[in-house]
């Protein structure tokens, strides 16, 4: 597989995409109107929700004015003073160990895991000549020993590929870096290359993070201010903030131990760092991570099952998805699992567009502030035409961060779940209104009003889970007394 073949295959594969629906424009506007109505309904219900799963694009330089999604630092930032981060003497607790530093400098920059590819046109990886190398950082960190080496960038692109508008600015730089990691007290020959060597501008900071140990090293210029935010903070009213603490670094490096996350849920870590130079922001980002699965898998997270789970899929296809959802929430908020209480509202079947089984899991997490995060995810087995299962795929139904209030077990949850098939000629997605209700008053009714009229979801005191074809146009589920008085409006969350 060379790059040309890959490009051609992707072009051919993309042609498999359907044509856009002729009424796509109308659908988009209708969806926007529904979204506005849903927000108004949420506000009316006193539940100002924050949809955390929808990313606001950053760096939108085409935006004007001070819109609410305008990212920090976009508006004509002042020029960042130049500082040579990598041309200074070695830093770190082992920087004074000349023999160790010299041995680290001599470690090879290639190994089996980072061998350059053989694709024609694929850029090769830098392998700095020994005489150009220097050790920038060498030190003991939580759970190990780390070192950062820089040297001449031998993989600078040439010709058209060197266009700075089209290629990586780091690859055009004169220097390249490589991180090495070893166990506690490691000798130089126990230090292993753990990152792909790559070019980096001389004034651009770098970092390395190990989620399982919590070790974090940030390398900036001497005099730079390095601040750390270990996690986002969720207030009781469901607002999300970050607090950055100064690491009091003086030599431009910060060696830190943040709370480890033992779960291999993937994704960006909760921790972020921020660097300022002479008061001017230089960087604010998640650190680069390395590592794979946790060699010591943690015990399962304690979950409170409000109803008995009804598993349709085996564990190896993700059937125990409520546990994975809990791990992902722990990763998202960077908190120890025992600081979050989890409730499993439902694990069971969900209607799908084909004969393939679909399993839905609905989990809530009460964060330390009392704010409640609701997460719902469906999994659908994938089948060959003869019905042989080949795996499972899935997607999120809904995510919502709601203010503190009623315990989740006493809340009504309403969401729209849309299950799609990947088959080009397959049926349309199946859309379901999922309503999960605790016990209530004997004369109550849960109703939904939609384009086709009013539908009764549930009546009487008994709680339960209702799965009904989604009534188009529905925005809220109302809770009514026997005389028709509306006592609560529950916004329908989801796409």
């Amino acid at each position, binding site marked *: 597989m060379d790059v040309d073949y890959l*490009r051609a295959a992707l072009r051919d594969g993309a042609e498999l*995409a359907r044509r856009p629906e002729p009424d796509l*424009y109308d659908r988009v506007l209708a969806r926007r109107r529904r979204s506005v109505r849903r927000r108004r309904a949420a506000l009316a219900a006193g539940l100002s929700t924050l949809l955390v799963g929808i990313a606001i694009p950053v760096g939108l330089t085409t935006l004007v004015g001070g819109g609410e999604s305008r990212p920090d630092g976009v508006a004509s930032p002042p020029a960042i003073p130049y500082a040579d981060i990598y041309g200074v003497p070695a830093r770190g607790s082992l920087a004074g160990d000349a023999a160790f530093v010299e041995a680290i400098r001599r470690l090879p920059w290639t190994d089996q895991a980072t061998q350059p*590819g053989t694709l024609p046109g694929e850029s090769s990886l830098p392998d700095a000549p020994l005489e150009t190398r220097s050790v920038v950082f060498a030190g003991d960190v939580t759970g190990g020993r780390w070192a950062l080496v820089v040297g001449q960038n031998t993989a600078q692109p040439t010709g058209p590929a060197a266009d700075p508008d089209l290629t*990586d600015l780091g690859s055009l730089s004169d220097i390249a870096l490589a991180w090495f990691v070893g166990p506690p007290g490691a000798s130089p020959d126990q230090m292993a290359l753990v990152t792909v060597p790559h070019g980096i501008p001389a004034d651009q900071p770098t970092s390395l993070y190990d989620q399982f140990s919590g070790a974090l090293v940030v390398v900036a210029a001497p005099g730079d201010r390095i601040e750390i935010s270990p996690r986002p903070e969720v207030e009781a009213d469901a607002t999300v903030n970050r607090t950055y603490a100064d690491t009091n670094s003086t030599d431009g490096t910060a060696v830190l131990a943040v709370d480890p996350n033992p779960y291999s849920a993937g994704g960006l870590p909760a921790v972020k760092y921020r660097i300022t130079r002479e008061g001017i922001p230089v960087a604010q980002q998640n650190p680069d991570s390395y590592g794979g699965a946790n060699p010591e898998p943690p015990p399962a997270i304690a979950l409170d099952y409000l109803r008995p789970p009804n598993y349709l899929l085996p564990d190896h296809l993700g059937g125990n998805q409520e546990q994975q959802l809990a791990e992902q929430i722990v990763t998202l908020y960077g908190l120890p699992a025992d600081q979050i209480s989890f409730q499993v509202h439902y694990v069971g079947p969900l209607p799908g567009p084909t004969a393939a089984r679909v399993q839905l899991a609905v989990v809530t997490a009460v964060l330390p502030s009392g704010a409640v995060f609701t997460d719902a995810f469906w999994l659908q087995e994938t089948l060959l035409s003869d019905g042989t299962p080949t795996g499972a795929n899935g997607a999120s139904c809904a995510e919502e961060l709601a203010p503190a209030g009623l315990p989740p077990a006493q809340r009504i949850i309403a969401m729209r779940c849309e299950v799609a*098939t990947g088959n080009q000629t397959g049926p349309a997605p199946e859309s379901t209104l999922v309503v999960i209700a605790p016990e209530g008053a004997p004369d109550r009714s849960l109703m939904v009003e939609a384009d086709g009229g009013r539908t009764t979801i549930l009546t009487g005191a008994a709680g339960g889970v209702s799965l009904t074809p989604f009534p188009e146009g529905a925005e809220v589920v109302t809770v009514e007394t026997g005389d028709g008085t509306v006592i609560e409006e529950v916004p329908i969350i989801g796409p």
Partner: protein
Amino acid sequence: MSSAEDEQFREFVASRSAALLRVAFLLTGDHGHAEDLLQTALMKTSRRWDHLVDRDACYAYVRRVMVNTQTSWLRRRRVIENYVDVLPETTEQVDDASDAHAPVMLALGQLPPGMRAIVVLRFYEDLGEAETARVLGCSIGTVKSQTSRGLARMRVHLTEATPSSAARREEP
């Protein structure tokens, strides 16, 4: 939006949604999800349409919204794919493999969403590493490493899917 802006947005949807849907399909590997992703991105864009100064950059704007939305799923694994260890041998697989692009699409489908997004942006949209990093809001080093690992994974998958490799014996 004013009526003129509304008309401009309508024209944009009509003229560029097919190309955007192709990107969405590569990002998601699923027709339904691709359509949903595009609708979501267009809905968000419609909210900001009157703030978009450079209308020539609108395609890139929507693409960025799609990628960010999709990779927010990466952060929380919002879309996942689990596979059985060994695929059963059936004529359906052979038929699929007969299409030149099918093995690559299958290999692409093995990648986590973020890694898949990087491969799509780099090799379908032909973005440079810096622009890909800007779109994804990650470091260039992450783009480099994810590209390298993504291609390596695809190569492994393609090699394993090649019948001749199955017959290859281990060197003594």
